[in-house]
């Protein structure tokens, strides 16, 4: 009940019918195809799926940092929690390099990546870059900015901050750079943090530190997190809600417990069964999903999972676009096996 109550409030961000097309030599690729989701204050939404399914394009579209060739349509409506002038703003209608999106990017919606080196310039010290970000968005006062920067370094568990402040990115270990990037992202108190595979390049031991840190800072600052990952273990431990992506589409979406206990989509079920678990029975063969992910170029209207699906219905799944079906209020799936329960007509 409580989770439901929180979900019914005004979302901080609502992504509606997001489409990203890329022109290729041999046709048009629908890299992101009709994606809808909402991000709520203090909650974590997980975006999970195999490589190439469109997770990064989706998350980067929110702050307009995809390259030019990505033809993006749909609505990304931002409802600022704190600033009335930023209410009900369609981020996609803003100029991608304009003043307004730049005042939101970094300050209201911050992003961290798998490779922290991309977030830092090798030419300047970590402290310099942290201060720069703080001075653009929070305070012009140099002394104050430095104080905030040192505080942030301490918050993310970097000891010896005075010394670290004057070091260059290459002098930091991978885990420390990741934490420094988080400190930079959070230094302006963003309402939304987008984390794209933030721990994929780290050892499990360091990953555990970084995930714990993200949770701690979330409870402290109340920010919303969009967590992009291919790791279902991270999803289970971190997220409130999960959106499963396959071939540019969200094929299933539900609260985290529901996804793990009551997955509906054959792809979600296949993913859950194919991952080896600690403490699992090793004499049992792993279930695998046969075949590979196709490339969504010039795809006819059909289910993208059709080729690999063991439950497919020939003549239905490969000849129609798959409508979204609501299983419950908070659980939706795109699969013809459930479409008789569908409310409203197929689009």
């Amino acid at each position, binding site marked *: 009940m409580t989770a439901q109550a929180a979900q019914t409030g005004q979302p901080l961000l609502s992504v509606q019918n997001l489409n990203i097309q890329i022109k290729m030599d041999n046709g048009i690729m629908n890299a992101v195809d009709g994606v809808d989701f909402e991000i709520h204050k203090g909650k974590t939404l997980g975006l999970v799926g195999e490589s190439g399914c469109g997770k990064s394009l989706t998350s980067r579209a929110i702050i307009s940092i995809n390259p030019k060739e990505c033809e993006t349509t749909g609505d990304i409506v931002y409802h600022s929690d704190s600033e009335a002038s930023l209410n009900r703003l369609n981020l996609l209608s803003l100029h991608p390099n304009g003043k307004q999106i730049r005042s939101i990017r970094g300050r209201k919606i911050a992003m961290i990546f798998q490779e922290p080196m991309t977030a830092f310039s090798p030419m300047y010290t970590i402290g310099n870059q942290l201060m720069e970000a703080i001075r653009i968005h929070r305070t012009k006062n140099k002394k104050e900015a430095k104080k905030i920067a040192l505080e942030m370094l301490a918050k993310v568990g970097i000891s010896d901050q005075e010394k670290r402040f004057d070091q260059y990115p290459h002098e930091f270990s991978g885990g420390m750079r990741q934490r420094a990037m988080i400190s930079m992202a959070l230094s302006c108190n963003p309402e939304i943090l987008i984390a794209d595979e933030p721990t994929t390049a780290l050892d499990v031991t360091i990953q555990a530190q970084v995930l714990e840190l993200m949770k701690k800072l979330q409870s402290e600052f109340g920010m919303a997190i969009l967590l992009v990952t291919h790791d279902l273990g991270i999803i289970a431990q971190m997220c409130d809600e999960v959106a499963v992506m396959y071939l540019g589409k969200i094929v299933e979406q539900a609260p985290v417990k529901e996804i793990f206990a009551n997955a509906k989509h054959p792809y979600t079920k296949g993913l859950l069964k*194919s991952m080896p678990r600690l403490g699992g029975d090793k004499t049992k063969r792993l279930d695998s999903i046969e075949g590979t992910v196709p490339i969504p170029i010039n795809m006819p209207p059909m289910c993208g999972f059709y080729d690999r699906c063991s439950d497919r219905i020939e003549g239905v799944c490969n000849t129609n676009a798959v409508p979204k079906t609501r299983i419950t209020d908070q659980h939706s799936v795109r699969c013809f096996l459930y479409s008789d329960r569908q409310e409203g007509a197929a689009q």
Partner: protein
Amino acid sequence: MTKPKPILDVIDMNKDFQVKSKTALFRKPASVQVLNQISFELIEGETLSIVGESGCGKTTLGRCIVRGMDASSGQVIYHTEDGQQIDFLKLKGKGSKTYRREIQMIFQDPYSSLSPRMSVFDIISEPLIANFKLSKAEVEEKVTLIAEKTGLNVSYLRRYPHAFSGGQRQRIAIARALITQPRLIVCDEAVSALDVSIQAQIINLLKDLQEQFRITYIFISHDLSIVQNISDRVAVMHLGRIVELAASESLFGQPRHPYTEALMSAVPQPDPELKKNRIILEGEVPNPANPPSGCHFHPRCAYRTEKCVKEVPELREVGYNHFTACHYAEELKLKGVHNELADEA
């Protein structure tokens, strides 16, 4: 059941790298010890996994075993099919060639380990042609057979690697490693770059091939869930040393080294109902150029004492075929995967 037969003995292997100091221009290059007295025995047909954080020396160990790199000291005794024992590291030139084809290695990155200018057929057949005198038809036949066994579409063999997905490329790498009928394959993070659904396909393939051809694997991985699924025995490495070595059930069920316990605890479990009290190690992975004193793990260990700071714990047998290098292995009650799950119930 046949009696367990050893295939390889690694004895006191050490590896040092000379690294130039970044700061002092005229200082002699410093020596960094990356492998420290590594010893273990490998049984024919088993899978021994090597786990540990990045930089602990897993790849170096694998490369020294297949002689992609020379160890600084130590022995690798190879037991041939007909029962001879050969120090593999001492073999030179032609002498080593026969055995090199019996010991193969597969790497993590199927993109960079396959030559982009060779067709898949040429990639797979190259080691065959280099090692055996065969007619064209015989080569053709063997490549086709291995392609089928590894799940590659035979009609695509004339294509180039870039036309294949990551999972397909890893199958090509496996086919290439298998073509000379090796007895031992070192798999270095062989499935780490693959998506889970594809990972499961390749793990199943490796298991099937092992059963069919009685292959022995050294399976290097940082992913404990996969390691538990695939291994008979597991060696945990920390900063160039083996700190724990045991049968998989024993190691995961009842770890005896605090580092093993922490590694297992850090794995995010795919179960949202499981709220565990995770052990979060503090601090960084230590640097082999500047290793901590005593037990290398002591700066991050929750159980350390004065003794740990001063004395190096030896790897010793603390249970049946269960080896651990911790001063307190007998006293500590560490959590394994099963009792942790039981705690929840």
